[in-house]
């Protein structure tokens, strides 16, 4: 609707990607890890924004599908041993299967996802979180219970996403994080591109119409339940992919991570970033993921924020307070989220320039 010329958008995209490609050559381990979390979260948030932002279907179960992706990968890629079972498949195959598994599980849930709308689906998906936590704790041979399970590094044959064998480019040693960075970045670009295509094409219009006026969508020939189910499956696959990347970054999966708090984090991402758009999901993901990390890193210099147990708020608490306030502020003052604000600023600037000419 409010588009910059094509060449502006393309050159901005190319510049952005080029900048991101340079990051591993300069950033330290802390920032690499934080950045990888942000990229994985961005992919997951794009998926949730397709479901919640574009279609109006609330999901509190997104963290469950991240867990399916993460544990699915570990299960498919690991060899069976005395404690654990696994299929020992080639790791790239395991990664793809893990994403498909997340989609399949979403598909199993789709009779519910297709029939329930809005907040009702939110309640139903909440159950998934608890089911997930139960399975993660109790299916020990698959999930490793509370100790979690080690994640086999991804091995593409010509490149292993691990610290060894050593790989040095331009005098910079590229370890597991640096290598994963490039992979995650490519996956993010593809994920964003596909989601944008979906949103701007025939399915996106159908989803938006379902969100804004369900009855009109049906009368216009959109099979409402089928689209709701389909977007739920797609959103689950995005979550699964995010889960696989997170598992590769963590190198050890822990069940506690995939709880209700994570699911709420994802909702906060799309609300703060902007509902219904790919860019909004990415901005929100970066904001929510980096905020606690940055606060931890720089807690010395910030008032009221201190190391846990020493008075003040812990950085994690401070981050929650800030983004709680951010959600409220966005809902009150910034419909459209941070990305919507950016669009409005650009419009205002364009209008002023238009008047000046």
């Amino acid at each position, binding site marked *: 609707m409010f588009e910059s010329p094509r060449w502006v958008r393309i050159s901005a995209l190319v510049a952005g990607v080029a900048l991101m490609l340079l990051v591993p050559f300069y950033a330290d381990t802390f920032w690499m890890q934080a950045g990888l979390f942000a990229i994985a979260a961005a992919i997951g948030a794009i998926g949730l924004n397709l479901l919640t932002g574009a279609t109006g279907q609330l999901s509190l179960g997104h963290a469950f599908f991240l867990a399916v992706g993460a544990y699915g990968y570990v299960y498919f890629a690991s060899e069976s041993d005395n404690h654990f079972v696994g299929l020992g498949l080639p790791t790239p195959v395991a990664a793809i299967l893990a994403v498909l598994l997340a989609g399949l599980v979403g598909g199993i849930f789709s009779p519910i996802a297709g029939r329930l709308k809005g907040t009702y689906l939110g309640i139903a998906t909440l159950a998934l979180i608890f089911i997930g936590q139960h399975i993660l704790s109790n299916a020990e041979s698959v999930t490793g219970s509370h100790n979690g399970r080690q994640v086999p590094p991804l091995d593409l044959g010509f490149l292993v996403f691990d610290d060894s064998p050593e790989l040095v480019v331009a005098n910079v040693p590229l370890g597991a994080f640096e290598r994963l960075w490039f992979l995650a970045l490519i996956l993010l670009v593809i994920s964003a591109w596909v989601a944008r295509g979906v949103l701007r094409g025939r*399915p996106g219009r159908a989803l*938006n119409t379902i969100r804004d*006026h369900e009855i009109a969508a*049906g*009368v*216009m*020939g959109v099979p409402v339940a089928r689209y709701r189910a389909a977007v739920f499956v797609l959103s689950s696959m995005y979550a699964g992919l995010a889960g696989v990347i997170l598992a590769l970054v963590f190198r050890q999966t822990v069940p506690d991570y995939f709880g209700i708090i994570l699911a709420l984090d994802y909702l906060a991402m799309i609300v703060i970033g902007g509902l219904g758009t790919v860019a909004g999901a990415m901005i929100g993901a970066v904001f929510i993921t980096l905020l606690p990390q940055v606060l931890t890193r720089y807690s010395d210099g910030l008032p009221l924020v201190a190391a846990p147990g020493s008075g003040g708020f812990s950085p994690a608490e401070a981050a929650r307070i800030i983004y709680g306030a951010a959600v409220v502020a966005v809902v009150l003052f910034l419909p459209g989220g941070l990305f919507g604000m950016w669009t409005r600023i650009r419009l205002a600037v364009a209008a002023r320039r238009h008047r000046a000419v």
Partner: protein
Amino acid sequence: MSTPRIPELVVSDLTVKFAGITALDAVGFTVAPGTIHAVIGPNGAGKSTCFNVLSGVYRATSGSVRFGEHELTKLPPHKIAHLGMARTFQNIALSKLMSVENNIMIGRHRLTRSGFLTAGLRLPLNRREERDHRARVREIAAFVGVSEYLAAPTGMLPYGVLKRIELARALAMEPILLMLDEPVAGMNGGERRRMAEVIKAVQEDLGISILLVEHDMGMVMQLADQVTVLDFGKRIASGPPAEVQQNPEVIRAYLGVSDENATGVSMDKERA
């Protein structure tokens, strides 16, 4: 474009009950191919309920609606849409957040095939469909007179324009039966005249059947070939407009008097 074969729409013995209230009571009428058929009646007569049953939004308690060989009372809304039935809504039912063009594009849904994969990967089918159907949408927008608003966000437009966008969206479905639920409600005189011209042009140029719910009697008398009058869910009269206008039952329903000499009274006063 060859004229599509248009079947009759036959409504018979249609009854709809909501928790003890009978909204429609054994109503029957037939929309002959290529004609404009109006359904009129005072507020609460069951006109919109009737529309909602025909388009599959409400379920009928009993009775049947046949469109050619299809029994519509058993079908969900999207299947009815695929038979070539389009409708507008009395209260605007557009997506406020989408552009006008995209709102009209949703009318092309039944005529296009791109799915998640085709659109996500921008396969050639997707590109071709987007290009061709957006071109057709622009033609339809010009026909209805909303071309200048295509790029605008729908939420910001005035009511009269939104009504026309609804009509454009319904026409974008290339329907063979068009159902208009109070197309000129809330419009001023000029807007009403324009809308009436567009509706007349739709029928003459496309040769499709039109089912019209309307309160504006001037418009009904001018456009309709046949009129069905409902009151409290019952059909109280049916026939050509001039005949219905003289019907004492109809006058009683509209004016609330039983003076049978008061024939020919204008019914425009009905609406507050």
